[in-house]
């Protein structure tokens, strides 16, 4: 097992990185409990494991974001201790975090250069730009250095994060769930770039919950469970996704239940001609919130088309309608307009009642549940406790408040239920939300919305960052709610999720609904081509007529 090694001693090692017996404890949890990790130079190495298994914690240890309580870090056979990330960067280790860390109001090159020029007060702008161009050509990471980060899609942002790390001279790249937000063709592009990187000698470690993509792209896999290494796979072709999943959770996965149509006649959610014009006028609430957050008080990015263009759709009781599309094609605007968070023209009806003029609160009270796209930005307050986060979004209803006062007991009781039913791994409900692992934060949010028993659910990426086991649980709960009559509008980057859950699928491109497809017959490849506009659907006009083609009369 672990033998202590003197700092600085070189040991003959074929590994670029070797972590031995890493232990890291947090109040109430042992996040890493003797993890071993060996990564060969010039390979793509995947780390898989349940939510809360300790993957991010391990990577932060390697990156110097915190120090391990026990264990050794060996880089090219030499023992190292990293007091800080900059010490790790000096050793050529760079990390892209689970949640993006880019400044929206700066350009791409500014973001890349920011903070990486210690000692140089005046940046050499031209040199920096040229270096970025070189890097992006060398590794096929295409992005325009002069574009504003706020205007970029997620795929581009991901590339900027990677360039940022490369710009600092990293030869060992750590990517924490880099594909969680990407659609399939972006995933393919990403791994093509990573392949190029490793061919030129760099080493890549990535974390992912998408086992197929792990098996397809990794040269080796390490499986972590409850803070321990439970498997090291040198040849991914020898295992199946099922075996991998079993190793992760320690038991067999529940098999997805067969589905039957539960679609009923009554329309629960109806959207008619919803449109958002491109140029935002005046000070809207988006800008105000941004202002309070310390950002620049502007919103909306100037685009050549309307962010949301005459979208109509219907969701019936007992139906799940999926929206497919590359992120940034109007999905955000659509759900925010339905939720009353963005001014839009058109009609939104819930249970036949016109809610177009109502506030977000009134719409929630009319029975809409909402899982926002970005959990840390919109879904929760990291510095608040779990039970306070369960109140969030429901503070105006009467579940948790009486005569303007917060009913702590009710909130805590509900939180206990959510934690129980959705298997949120936490030492308690009084801890701050930031102590939860990414996937557990997501489970808390989905649980909060589902436990409030909505009539209509607007769910954006409900299983983003959630492990395969918990994903199956959430899917089951969504299916169960569907057969109980819930109307769900589902947005997801995960095509398997869209195809597997949806009764009907709409494709969005440049603010419009451009196609409606049957999830029973469509293939992910076909869907992908609709999403990029390569394929024009014939059965449906591009302007988006009310999308209830397959609903029973």
């Amino acid at each position, binding site marked *: 097992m672990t033998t202590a090694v003197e700092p600085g001693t070189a040991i003959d090692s074929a590994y670029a990185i070797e972590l031995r017996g890493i232990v890291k404890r947090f109040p109430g949890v042992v996040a890493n409990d003797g993890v071993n990790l060996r990564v060969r130079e010039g390979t793509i190495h995947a780390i898989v494991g349940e939510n809360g298994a300790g993957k991010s914690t391990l990577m932060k240890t390697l990156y110097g974001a915190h120090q391990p309580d026990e264990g050794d870090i060996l880089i090219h056979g030499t023992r190292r201790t990293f007091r800080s990330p900059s010490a790790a960067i000096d050793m050529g280790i760079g990390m892209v975090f689970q949640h993006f860390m880019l400044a929206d109001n700066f350009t791409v090159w500014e973001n890349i250069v920011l903070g990486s020029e210690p000692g140089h007060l005046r940046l050499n702008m031209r040199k920096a730009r040229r270096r970025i161009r070189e890097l992006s050509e060398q590794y096929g990471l295409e992005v325009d250095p002069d574009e504003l980060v706020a205007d970029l899609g997620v795929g581009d942002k991901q590339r900027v994060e990677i360039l940022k790390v490369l710009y600092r001279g990293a030869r060992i790249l750590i990517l924490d769930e880099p594909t969680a937000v990407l659609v399939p063709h972006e995933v393919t592009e990403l791994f093509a770039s990573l392949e190029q990187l490793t061919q030129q000698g760099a080493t890549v470690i990535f974390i992912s919950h998408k086992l197929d993509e792990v098996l397809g792209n990794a040269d080796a896999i390490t499986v972590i469970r409850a803070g321990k290494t439970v498997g090291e796979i040198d040849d991914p072709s020898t295992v199946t996704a099922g075996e991998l999943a079993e190793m992760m959770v320690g038991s067999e996965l529940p098999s997805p239940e067969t589905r039957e149509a539960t679609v009923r006649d009554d329309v629960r959610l109806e959207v008619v001609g919803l449109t958002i014009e491109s140029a935002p006028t005046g000070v809207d609430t988006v800008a105000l919130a941004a202002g309070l957050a310390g950002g620049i008080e502007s919103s909306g990015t100037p685009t050549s088309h309307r962010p949301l263009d005459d979208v109509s759709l219907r969701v019936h009781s007992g139906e799940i309608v999926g929206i497919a599309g590359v992120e940034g094609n109007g999905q955000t605007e659509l759900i925010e307009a339905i939720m009353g968070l963005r001014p839009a023209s058109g009609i939104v009806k819930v249970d036949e009642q016109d809610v177009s003029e109502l506030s977000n609160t009134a719409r929630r009270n009319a029975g809409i549940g909402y899982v926002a796209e970005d959990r840390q930005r919109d879904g929760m*307050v990291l510095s608040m406790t779990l039970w306070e986060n369960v109140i969030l979004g429901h503070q105006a209803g009467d579940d948790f408040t009486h005569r303007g006062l917060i009913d702590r007991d009710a909130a805590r009781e509900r939180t206990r239920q959510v934690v129980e039913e959705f298997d949120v791994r936490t030492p308690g409900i009084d801890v701050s939300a930031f102590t939860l692992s990414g996937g557990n934060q997501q489970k808390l949010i989905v649980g909060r919305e589902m436990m409030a028993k909505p009539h209509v659910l607007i769910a954006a990426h409900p299983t983003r960052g959630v492990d395969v086991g918990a994903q199956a649980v959430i899917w089951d709960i969504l299916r169960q709610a569907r057969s109980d009559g819930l109307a769900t509008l589902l947005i997801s980057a995960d095509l398997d999720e869209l195809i597997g859950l949806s009764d009907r699928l709409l494709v969005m491109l440049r603010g419009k609904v451009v196609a409606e497809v049957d999830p029973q017959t469509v293939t992910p490849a076909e869907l992908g081509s609709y999403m990029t506009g390569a394929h024009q659907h014939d059965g449906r006009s591009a302007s988006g007529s009310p999308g209830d083609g397959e609903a029973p009369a």
Partner: protein
Amino acid sequence: MNRRLLTTFAAPALAAVAAIVVSSVAVLVAGESPATAFKAMWSQIDSTESIVLIVNRAVPYYVAGVAVAIGFKMNLFNIGANGQYVLAALLAAAAGAAVDLPAPIHVAMIMGIAVVVGATWAAIPALLKAYRGVNEVISTIMLNYVATNLIAYLLAEHFRNPDQPNIRETRVLPESARLPSLNSLFEAIGFDFGPGVVLHGFLPVAIVLGIGYHVLLNRSRFGFNLRVSGENPTAARAAGISPRRMIIVTLIMSGAIAGLIGIGPLIADPQFYKYGDQFPVSYGFIGLSLALLGRNHPVGMAAAALVWATIERATQALSFVDIPQEIGIILQGSFLLSAIIAYEIVRRLSADAETRAASRETPGTRTIAEAPA
């Protein structure tokens, strides 16, 4: 629990030490002995009378702290508390002197006017920010100037006491408009402050205000919305908490409380009972310092207000030993600055300590189960 208490007090203690060192250096630079200075300062506050005077002084400071803190809680900087309270005090003084009412109603009316005036004056930056995106720091600073000039005009032209044409002040408030001192209350429990020492009657109002602030913030829906808006504005918006409404209500509430800053001096301090040139006009700025020092916490700000008033009282003694009184300002300034730094240091240290303690409490087993690959 002990650890938490320790970390709560560690930062202010550290800051106090730093502030004493800095001001000692300042005294040395001035060519005097720090020992003499601090001895003189100590003798100045070492009496019942001093303590009463300090509390009297701390009360309006505390009100100012609460007024500012409620804005801070959602990242709104109400720099305009000065303008709000001075205008409120003037109008309340003028109105209070103009009518004749039974005691409790008279007092309530004065407070009511002060609250309304403070709120109204704060509504201007609130609406400007909510509907035009105007930064409240800038608009409240400007409105302070407007208030100063408006007050000068009103006092000169409208509210001046006709019996005293040479002095710019309002008429003295009648007995019924004044808050009685708390001396008799303390005498009833056998506590005599001594001759000529008066504990002002506004203290209970400040205490109620502090409790109300705590309940509002931590128990009410409004307080929840406020904290969410402050901690994560985008999540607040997504949760249906209207940033516009929160900005308006919070700034107006801050102004309403600010309106009460001057009411303690006005109706409970025998030195005033009127608005005039002597009336204090910059307690709002002190409130900013206290909210920072007390970390927007109802008890923390009370402690900060007492420290602030104590330093002011103590440094009065410096003139007796020929040391510049400005040392007091250096002491306050360095205390504030080092407290902010110390809070950050202690926060980091205690986070480390907490993790280390967790390591001891939950020793991990180090067996590694190798699964068949």
